[in-house]
């Protein structure tokens, strides 16, 4: 599908050169920096689209009357009603429930609390924060019990961290590209600022028996969900999170407290946390012995995958959108890695034949969403958009061919809400048709 049009130099509206840096219309990312001036320059010199036939501007009704009263806790404009999570189990039938983040309708790097993804395994518990307790026991010197009130008096620390379900992007195991939005394909990852108490602080107070190699974290939800976590991670950057983007945790995100293990599989970040038991050996709970062990092509299975590896995907433009005519567009997307900061993101408009480095929006934080942007002049012809991320540890997002060679693929497309396998982090490709329509493709 690649076309190597050699428009090596395009011109912006000030007549300056926009340097083409890769095939099919990708423009040097530094063009983004001067864009504001670009349009100002266009106005002052009178260069730009003709203004003929425009209606004279008049006051709209909302400019001629007093508006609505404010609400104590504001919600988005009614015109933004389509910006919502998709629910897998809206009637709370007796099974797991998922809510997916609409990345194709969001910008920046912070997931609003109401749109953060959720997975719950027995509904959302209705926990009275005054009655909730966190107990730390097992191979400790002194078992201790904490309340939300006492934990809130500890030194608090904030960090931005993405959280991703190990099964996010599972539809990508399909042998053919599923025609679904970014929300359906990659909606089980979100990013927030979390504030809480470092777990190491609490473990200093309980003391740790040197025999302890693992801890079992357990929730107060109906399945009493439990996962084993190496003490190594607990002493590194684990947190008992109490706040999410400045307010108390959302109920579906673990109110009133959850374990936060930056960069690790979402299910291990146990919500509604009520018990931590230090032990010598892992529990092999159902979630680790079965659900989050992944079958490999050779019939064996991975255990304790833990890491959410380096990954990126383009959110704009993406499946379900249509480009409205040739011209300058800004390709935008998200990159993140469980092993540190994003080092760089490369973007291709010709299905991987040529690549150009995208601009990374500051701040670029460890184990957090990084927004990348890439100017692109679409000439109206077919294009295949891809992004590929590198992290500071030297890990690179695999191509689909590389990924499938190692991890395999399904024999037929899975149900879109299913979890046929996990830890998919390969490249996502969007095919742009000559009418501007965008489809999910494998390239």
């Amino acid at each position, binding site marked *: 599908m690649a076309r190597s049009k050699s428009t090596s130099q395009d011109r912006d509206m000030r007549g300056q050169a926009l340097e083409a840096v890769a095939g099919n219309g990708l423009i040097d990312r530094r063009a983004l920096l001067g864009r504001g001036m670009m349009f100002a320059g266009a106005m002052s010199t009178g260069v730009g689209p003709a203004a003929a036939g425009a209606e004279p501007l008049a006051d709209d009704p909302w400019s001629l009357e007093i508006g609505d009263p404010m609400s104590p806790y504001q919600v988005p404009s009614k015109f933004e009603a389509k910006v919502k999570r998709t629910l897998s189990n809206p009637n709370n039938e007796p099974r797991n429930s998922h809510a997916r983040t609409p990345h194709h309708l969001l910008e920046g790097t912070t997931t609003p609390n109401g749109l953060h993804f959720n997975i719950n395994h027995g509904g959302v518990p209705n926990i009275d924060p005054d009655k909730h307790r966190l107990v730390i026991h097992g191979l400790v010197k002194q078992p201790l019990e904490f309340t939300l009130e006492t934990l809130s008096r500890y030194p608090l620390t904030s960090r931005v961290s993405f959280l991703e379900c190990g099964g996010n992007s599972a539809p990508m195991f399909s042998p053919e590209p599923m025609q679904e939005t970014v929300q359906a394909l990659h909606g089980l990852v979100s990013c927030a600022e979390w504030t809480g108490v470092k777990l190491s602080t609490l473990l*200093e*107070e309980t003391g740790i028996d040197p025999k302890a190699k693992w801890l079992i974290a357990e929730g107060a939800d109906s*399945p009493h969900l439990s996962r084993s976590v*190496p003490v190594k991670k607990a002493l590194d950057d684990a947190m008992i999170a109490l706040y999410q983007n400045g307010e108390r945790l959302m109920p579906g995100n673990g109110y009133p407290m959850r374990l936060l293990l930056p960069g690790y599989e979402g299910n291990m970040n146990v919500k509604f946390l009520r*018990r931590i038991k230090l032990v010598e050996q892992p529990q092999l709970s159902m979630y680790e012995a079965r659900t989050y062990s992944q079958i490999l092509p050779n019939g064996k299975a991975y255990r304790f*995958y833990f*890491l959410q590896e380096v990954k990126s995907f383009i959110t704009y433009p993406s499946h379900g959108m249509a480009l409205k005519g040739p011209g300058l567009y800004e390709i935008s997307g998200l990159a993140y890695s469980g092993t540190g900061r994003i080092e760089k993101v490369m973007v291709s408009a010709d299905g991987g034949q040529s690549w150009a480095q995208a601009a990374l929006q500051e701040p670029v934080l460890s184990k957090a969403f990084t927004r990348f942007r890439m100017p692109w002049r679409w000439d109206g012809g077919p294009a295949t958009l891809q992004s590929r991320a590198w992290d500071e540890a030297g890990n690179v997002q695999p191509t689909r061919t590389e990924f499938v060679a190692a991890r395999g693929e399904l024999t037929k497309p899975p149900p879109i809400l299913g979890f*046929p396998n996990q830890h998919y982090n390969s490249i996502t490709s969007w095919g742009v048709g000559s009418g501007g329509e965008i489809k999910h493709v494998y390239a």
Partner: protein
Amino acid sequence: MFTPKHAILAASLLLAATAGVSWAETPHLGKPIDEAAIANWDISILPDGTGLPKGSGTPAQGAPIFAEKCAACHGDNGKGGGAAAALVDDRQINGISASQKTIKNFWPYATTIFDFVRRAMPFQMPHSLTDDEVYALTAYILAENKLIGANDAMNAETLPKVKMPNRDNFIIRFPDRI
């Protein structure tokens, strides 16, 4: 005078130093609690059987409990067809889909069955079964899968000894993170 509290502090300090944790003054607002008070919450069963309670159950004792409390979702005799996964299934793993996983062909430890059933089942009434009932249901599921004999009782001694066929088929993904 060197008190037990000092010993705890000294041990903690030593551990903090050896683990590379920086020591800072902390509020010490946790309330000491003894293991007896935690017992009702302490429901984790480890693969070697650590944590298994007293009690016992046989497949025959489990059958009527299963019919009453489990079959509506897991199907008659655990063979599926309801809203939840089959628990009795003879298939071999074919392909990489998680739908291929069964207790018999995938679950590495029988203790996980006890642990999960006790903490999470029945779905609408979790943690409501007696330990004897959980042992009986575990025995029933294992026997229907022909992983134990039809008359084998499951208890704290026998359950950890059940050899699950797929036990040695797992690869630790990132050993250096453990």
